[in-house]
């Protein structure tokens, strides 16, 4: 594998490779000195054109554990503010000896654009409203660790599906591993019938539900999404209050889902909007496990693309 651009272009075997490698690498995190020399001498460029907490620090942590050097780029204070194009920025930074580029960008397809032009591996850390493949991999890893397998599960994804790159990657990833994905949320933030045809990988393995209860009923996994205010050109939701009442997950929903079903969220969370604050105490809430697995998954990705592991 040369790049990691999206889940869509990965096979089930590719995904399994990353998950297994991540599982094996996770042990390093618990060592007294969590550091191995594997990527010594490699230089990784973190190019974040959008705010990020988890993803950015988790890539940085993964680099450091594997002994890769990290160069971090902030648009603020860089020549981007002087009008430098992305292409020029990256060409210039590449001459500094970069071996791999991790990019997050507000425009869909930007990692693909770089991958087409540059000869170094490119990792998509979230592009516009397209995909966020490492998030999907860590979601899969978390579910596999907690439930033991990834096939024949019912996965419900709730919220603003249309603008969520996490949803787009998860929808494809869980189906590729043999599970069924149900999505629900405000109807105008769900895939249109024409778009649905793309997301449905095989007959009946994907369903758009206008009713929240239908989506989460007997679900094995429920993933709540953040309402992505910053991607709405005009307000798309009348009020957060109404959103919480209609599409927010609350303790009352726990009776509908399967016993022991996992509750996940890619973060950052708006408590009181998509999730009722009480749910923080739900015993099968695995939100912080997701974050921890994020480091392992990103280690697996870096190792694969930089060493061909």
């Amino acid at each position, binding site marked *: 594998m040369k790049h990691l651009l999206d889940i869509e272009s990965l096979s089930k075997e590719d995904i399994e490779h990353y998950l297994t490698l991540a599982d094996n690498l996770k042990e390093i995190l618990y060592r007294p000195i969590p550091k191995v020399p594997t990527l010594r001498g490699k230089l990784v460029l973190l190019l974040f054109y959008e705010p990020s907490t988890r993803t950015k620090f988790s890539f940085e942590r993964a680099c450091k554990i594997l002994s890769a050097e990290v160069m971090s780029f902030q648009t603020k204070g860089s020549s981007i503010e002087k009008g430098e194009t992305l292409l020029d920025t990256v060409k210039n930074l590449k001459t500094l000896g970069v071996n791999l580029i991790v990019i997050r*960008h507000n425009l*869909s*397809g930007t990692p693909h654009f770089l991958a*087409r032009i540059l000869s170094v591996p490119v990792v998509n850390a979230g592009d516009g*409203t397209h995909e966020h493949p490492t998030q999907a991999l860590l979601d899969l890893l978390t579910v596999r660790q907690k439930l033991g397998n990834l096939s024949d599960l019912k996965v419900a994804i709730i919220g603003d599906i249309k603008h969520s790159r996490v949803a787009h990657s998860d929808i494809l990833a869980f189906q590729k591993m043999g599970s069924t994905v149900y999505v629900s949320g405000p109807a105008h933030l769900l895939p*249109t019938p*024409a*778009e649905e*045809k*793309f997301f449905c990988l095989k007959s009946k393995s994907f369903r758009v539900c206008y009713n929240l209860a239908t989506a989460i009923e007997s679900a094995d996994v429920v993933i709540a999404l953040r309402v992505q205010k910053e991607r709405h050109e005009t307000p798309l939701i009348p009020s957060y209050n109404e959103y919480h009442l209609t599409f927010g997950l609350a303790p009352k929903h726990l009776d509908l889902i399967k016993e022991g079903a996992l509750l996940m969220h890619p973060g950052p969370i708006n408590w009181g909007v998509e999730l009722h604050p009480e749910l923080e105490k739900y015993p099968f809430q695995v939100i912080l496990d997701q974050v921890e697995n994020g480091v392992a998954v990103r280690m697996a990705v870096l190792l694969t693309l930089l060493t061909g592991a």
Partner: protein
Amino acid sequence: MRLLIKNGRVLDPTLGLDLIADVYIVDGKIEGVEENISASADRIIDAQGLWVLPGLVDIHVHLREPGEEWKEDIESGTRAALHGGVLRVACMPNTKPPVDTAEVCSAIIAKAKEKGYVPVYPIACITKGQAGKELTEFGRLKLAGAVALSDDGKWVQDSEMMRKALLYAKSFDLPIISHPEDQTLSFGGQVNLGKLSAKLGLKGVPFSAETVAVVRDLLLAKETKGKLHLAHLSVKENLPFLRWAKEEGVNFTAETCPHYFHLTEWECDGYNTLAKVNPPLRTEEDVLAIKQAIKEGLIEVIASDHAPHSPLEKDVEFELASPGMIGLEFLLPLSSSLVREGLISPLKLLKLLITNPAKVIGIEPPSLRKGEKAEIVLFDPEEEYLVTEDFIQSKSKNTPFLGKTIKGRIKKVILKDKVYEF
């Protein structure tokens, strides 16, 4: 100088000709079209197997001058037109500054007279600065040479403004060219709304953005009896409304471009900015419907929507890339597929490319009529060739057909005494 074109398939929609014949040209003028002309000539051109036709009229072209000469200018754009057998060009007014005053209009005509390879007919703005707020001086623009009015890519969103424009234009017998796109519906859209927009995570343009605009404009044209031309139609949902308007006798014509009956949204897969265009490429069903509309006579004009962009506008992130593709040099080759597919006759095709567009803007098209100056295209409808950057004479090379093999090649263009060999 006497020139004899022998044994070609002579096709002239201005005369209704379709026969194997010779064309005799004396001192740059058509002397006659007949079988087996035996008159002596200084040069004989063997046109066996070729179509011999008067030059095309393309009423949807962006020449980019004034203001964006790094993409195209009047000289390079008309050279590309010549290379495509397009011998009349009507250019869109979204230049910098836009063609919203008689002065800009006159300047374009003067420049075209000086540098142009073929005649250029400016289309002027409907509203000042294409802003949709205030009408331009239709009368002075017409005196300066404008042949039609259009705010180009900016549909006149204000219905009352459009109604006023359709009425006022009647005073000057000018057509209003609408780019039907309700921009409240297409806002931010990058590709067709559907499977591909889902795959690429890009905002999609729904068919309603086009059809809502088409229907509104048809209603206003019906009410005002103004002359309406609908540019670059791309979706199947338009068809019943076009049929309705024909039945009602609405004074309108409709246009499409070769890319809407050759390509689908999947051309943009992999974030291919060369296939980004407004309106976006649609689905296979839409492609079939556009062909059906041509066959039924609902769409009566094929134009290129030649929209040159340099790598500065195209070698960028998809959402930042400018929409549009060049097309002057491929207008006839790509359109000729409609004949090979048996959809329409060659003569009908040439009506869509010569007489009908000329009628929309009220000009005389090139013709093989005796006494006319020679403006003739020799076209091989069967020749296949690879589209390369070297082939393209436009300053810009932005076309998704780059690197593809297409069928139908312009072999020669004759302008009076001069024979251009391609």
